[in-house]
C-alpha cells in the first residue's frame, strides 16, 4: 500500500491511499484501503480553548488567560514525552470560557499493514476519535492505535507475530488553528504524524524548514 497526506494553503487536509492489497489474498477480498474509517480518515472539528497546546518546561503560553492548570498525570506526560522528539510537557489550561479561545483541529491519516486488523479496530477513525474526544494531541492518538502495544497490536491477541495479524503503520497530518473571541487567528500549528508496530514502514516527509526526510526503520 502507498499513501499521501497533504495540507494545503487553505488549511484543508486530504488523505490518498492506493494498494494492490495483501499478497496471495483471496480474489474478491476487499481490504481496508477503500473502506472509510478503516484504512483512511480525515475530519475537522472545533473545541473550546486549546487543550493540546504545547508548553515547554511547564511555562505558560502568553496566549492563555491565567487559569487553574490541569496537570497531566505523570504516566500520560511520560507517554507524550516518549512520543515527541523533544521534552514537551502538555499542561492544558482550563480556559476561562467567557471570551476564551476556540480551536479548529483538522486531521488526515493513511494506514498500511494487515488490512483485516485495521477493519477490526476501525483504526483510522479511532485515531481521529481519540484525538477529538480525549482532546489529546493527534500524535499521541496515532501512537495509541498504531504504535507498539497499541490497539492494532492488541487486536491480534495471541496471534501476534503469526501471519501478520495486527501488523501495520499509520501516517498523517494535523492542523491546529487557534482563534480569539473575535475570530482572529492567534496561532496555527501543523504536525507530522507517524508510527508503526512492526519491523518497518517506508515513509518520507518534508519538515517546516523544507528539509526532506526518508525513513524505513526507527533510527535509520
Amino acid at each position, binding site marked *: 500500500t502507498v*499513501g*499521501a497526506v497533504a495540507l494545503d494553503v487553505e488549511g484543508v487536509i*486530504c488523505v490518498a491511499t*492506493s494498494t*494492490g492489497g495483501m499478497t496471495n489474498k483471496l480474489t474478491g477480498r476487499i481490504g481496508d484501503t477503500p473502506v472509510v474509517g478503516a484504512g*483512511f480518515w*480525515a475530519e475537522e472539528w472545533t473545541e473550546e480553548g486549546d487543550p493540546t497546546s504545547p508548553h515547554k518546561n511547564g511555562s505558560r503560553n502568553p496566549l492563555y488567560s491565567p487559569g487553574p492548570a490541569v496537570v497531566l498525570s505523570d504516566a500520560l506526560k511520560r507517554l507524550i514525552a516518549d512520543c515527541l522528539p523533544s521534552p514537551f510537557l502538555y499542561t492544558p489550561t482550563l480556559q476561562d470560557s467567557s471570551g476564551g479561545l476556540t480551536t479548529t483541529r483538522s486531521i488526515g491519516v493513511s494506514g498500511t*499493514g494487515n488490512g483485516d486488523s485495521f477493519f477490526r479496530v476501525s483504526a483510522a477513525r479511532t485515531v481521529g476519535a481519540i484525538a477529538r474526544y480525549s482532546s489529546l494531541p493527534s500524535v499521541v492518538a496515532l501512537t495509541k492505535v498504531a504504535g507498539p502495544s497499541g490497539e492494532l497490536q492488541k487486536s491480534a491477541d495471541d496471534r501476534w507475530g*503469526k501471519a501478520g495479524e495486527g501488523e501495520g503503520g499509520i501516517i498523517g497530518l494535523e492542523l491546529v488553528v487557534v482563534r480569539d473571541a473575535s475570530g482572529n487567528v492567534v496561532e496555527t500549528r501543523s504536525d507530522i504524524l507517524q508510527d508503526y508496530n512492526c519491523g518497518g514502514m517506508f515513509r518520507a516527509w518534508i519538515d517546516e524548514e523544507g528539509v526532506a526526510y526518508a525513513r524505513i526503520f526507527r533510527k535509520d
Partner: protein
Amino acid sequence: QVQPRLIIHGGAGNITPASLGPERYVAYRSSLLTIVSKAHTYLTTPTQSNYNSPSSSSKLPSALEAATYAVTLLEDNPLFNSGHGAVFTRDGINELEASVMVSRGQAKRGVGVTGLRHVRNPILLAKKVLEHGKDDLLGRGKKLDNNTGDGEPDVPSAQGHTLIHGPTAEKLARQYGLEMVDPSYFFTQKRWDEHVRALEREKREQQDLLGAGTASGVSATWSKDEYLPQG
C-alpha cells in the same frame, strides 16, 4: 495562510534490515526522497495553467490535487505495492483498491474504489468519483454524455456513493477519461516470484503439518522470513 505540508508512505510490515539488504534500502530511500520532494514542489508551486488565464490569479494546488499527485508517483513506481508493481491474489491476478478523503465540508468527503483491474492509476478514479459525486450529491452533476462506445448506456454518474466496486467502477473510469491499461501493465517479476514462492511454501508446510497430524496454521499471505506486502 497555512504552510502546506506533506507526508507519504510506501507500506509497513515485517521489514527488516536483513531481508531488505543495502541495495534495496538505498533504492527505497532514494525513491521516497524523490517522490516526496517532487510532490512537495507541486504542492507549493502555483499551478501553471492559472498563469495562462488572465482572469484567475495563480493558485496553489489543493490538498486533494497534491495528495493524489504524490500517490500517482508511488503507483507508477514498481518498488511499491500499488499500480505497477502490485501484488497478486491467490489466483495470480491483480485487484487494486484506492481511496481519498478530505477534512473539510459535511457533504461527501470520502470515497473508496475496489476490484480494479484495468485502471492505470486507481487513485485518480477515487479523486474523480469524489469530485463528480459531490456535484451530483449537491445537484450540480455534470451530465456524462461521453459515450464509451461500448454500446451500453453510460453509468449515470457516481451519485453520492462512497464505495464502488469492479466493473461499474471501471466503467466510470472510462467515462471520466482516465487511462485504462491491459492487466499485464501491473506485472513485475519480483511480485510474481513472491506470489509463487509463498504459495509453494504454504503447500510444503501444510504437507509437513498434515504429516505430523497437526492443524495447518500456515498462510501464503505472510512470512516471518521476508516482507510480503500486507496492503
